[in-house]
């Protein structure tokens, strides 16, 4: 099978994710942790992130709707989100978490609500883009990926 066209698509997609600010250098670090013993490490970690972060987003939304708002708890939830987001290189989400935390600090409820909507959009967009990216990677298979990663 001629993988060159597939690889062009993969590289182009990855470059686009970086150029548009969805991902940062930390994502490359994750890829460097992947090897023959764990050929799907990055995809598994990313899947774990999206599973946990979906739950966190729900918790943040519920916490926002409680009255009176507990900005300390909100900050703590968003802090968790920021940490794990930065661990997979999710740059836009990390930045939006920082905005959210700033709104918490100011006890700005409307600001928090706006930030949450942005976080949810960024979350959904990144999830979709990475799912497409991993679908392409799966087509080349782990062996071909390993060969190509050494080039």
């Amino acid at each position: 099978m001629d993988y060159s066209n597939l690889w062009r698509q993969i590289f182009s997609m990855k470059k686009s994710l970086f150029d548009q600010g969805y991902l940062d250098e930390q994502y490359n670090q994750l890829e460097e942790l992947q090897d023959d013993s764990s050929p799907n490490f990055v995809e598994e970690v990313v899947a774990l992130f999206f599973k946990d972060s979906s739950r966190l987003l729900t918790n943040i939304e519920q916490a926002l709707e409680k009255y009176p708002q507990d900005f300390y708890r909100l900050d703590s939830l968003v802090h968790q989100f920021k940490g794990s987001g930065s661990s997979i290189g999710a740059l836009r989400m990390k930045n939006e978490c920082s905005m959210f935390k700033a709104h918490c600090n100011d006890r700005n409820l409307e600001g928090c609500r706006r930030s949450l909507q942005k976080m949810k959009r960024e979350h959904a967009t990144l999830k979709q883009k990475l799912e497409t990216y991993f679908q392409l990677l799966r087509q080349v298979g782990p062996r071909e990926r390993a060969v190509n990663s050494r080039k």
Partner: protein
Amino acid sequence: MKNLEVLCCFFMASKKQGSATRALVVEDIKVDCVILLRILRQLNCEATVAHNGKEAVDLFLEGKTFDIIFFDKDMPLMNSPEAVTKIRSMGATEVKMVGVSADFGGMEAFMRAGADMFVPKPMKFETVDSMLQEVISKKNMSG
């Protein structure tokens, strides 16, 4: 992917003096835990996981010892600065304690509690490698 409820993960052993560096990872966020464990594995480190500060303290009460501990700041049951204080007060003065958090907000609490250093997330391979090299050098010098 391995079950994250497993508390002890033993990886490849042997450094200069014949014993692997022993790390304790105190982290309740699965993604962050998995990534740090992977880094430690690639650096031939023997790693144990505690899911909160209390579990970390309990390990020391059981007589366990470690060369380095990575503490995420916000933990259920007992937060990490509190765990650092308790573990230091138990006489564990040599173990290198590293505070970790999503931003620099937690640094002061960690350093006041007795941590040796603070690192903001994300944890980088080079940073962990450098810390472990320091721990190994210190172990080798003390014989």
